C-alpha cells in the first residue's frame, strides 16, 4: 500500500520566518510528487516534481525532490500571514484497470502552518 508521511503535523511561526516542510513516501511505481496548499476546502496546486535534485521555485516558495532517499521538502521564506494553510504532499502512481494504467494521487496527512503577525 502506498504511504505518504508529512512532518511536522503543525507549525506556528511569526511573519518573516523561514519554514521547511517535509514529506517522505513509500510507493510502488513512483511517477511524480505534488505539493498543494489548502485554505478552507479546495486544495490548490503548488508544484509537481519528477526529477531528483532540480529545485522548483515560485516566489518565496521552493521545493526539491530526492528520489534516492524518497523525500521532498517545501521551503517558504519570509513567511506572511497569507501563507497560513494546510500544506499537502501527494505522490502519483498508476491505477491499474484491465492492464491500462492511469494515475492516482495518495496524500499525506498535511502540515498545518500558522503564521502570526
Amino acid at each position: 500500500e502506498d504511504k505518504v508521511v508529512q512532518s511536522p503535523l503543525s507549525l506556528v511561526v511569526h511573519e518573516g520566518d523561514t519554514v521547511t516542510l517535509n514529506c517522505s513516501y513509500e510507493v510502488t511505481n513512483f511517477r511524480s510528487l505534488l505539493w498543494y496548499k489548502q485554505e478552507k476546502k479546495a486544495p490548490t496546486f503548488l508544484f509537481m516534481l519528477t526529477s531528483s535534485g532540480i529545485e522548483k521555485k515560485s516566489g518565496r516558495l521552493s521545493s526539491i525532490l530526492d528520489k534516492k532517499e524518497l523525500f521532498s521538502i517545501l521551503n517558504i521564506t519570509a513567511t506572511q500571514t497569507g501563507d497560513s494553510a494546510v500544506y499537502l504532499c501527494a505522490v502519483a502512481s498508476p491505477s491499474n484497470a484491465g492492464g491500462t494504467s492511469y494515475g492516482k494521487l495518495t496524500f499525506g496527512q498535511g502540515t498545518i502552518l500558522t503564521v502570526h503577525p
Partner: protein
Amino acid sequence: EAGVAQSPRYKIIEKRQSVAFWCNPISGHATLYWYQQILGQGPKLLIQFQNNGVVDDSQLPKDRFSAERLKGVDSTLKIQPAKLEDSAVYLCASSGPGEKLFFGSGTQLSVL
C-alpha cells in the same frame, strides 16, 4: 477557464438518512476523482473514473457508497444510509493528461 463545480457546499443530515453530491469537472477532463477528507487528515481516494468507466474503487465502502458518471462528464456520489463517521469534506477533482489534479470547493457533510 471554469473550475470544478460541486454542490451542495454544505449538508447536514441525520444518521441513516441518504445524501447525494454532484460534481461537474473541468471541460475536456477525462479523469474524475472523489476524495473523502476527514478533519485533521489528508484526502483519501474513494473512486476514480476514466470517462464513464471506474478505474479504482478499492477504498469505496460499497455497502453504503455509490458513484456514477453516466455520460463521462458530471458525476454523483451517494451515501445510503449515512453513518456518523461519514462526516467529512467530500472533494471532487478532475485531470487531463498527467497527474495534476484540479479540485472543487468540496461539500462539507455533517451526520448527526
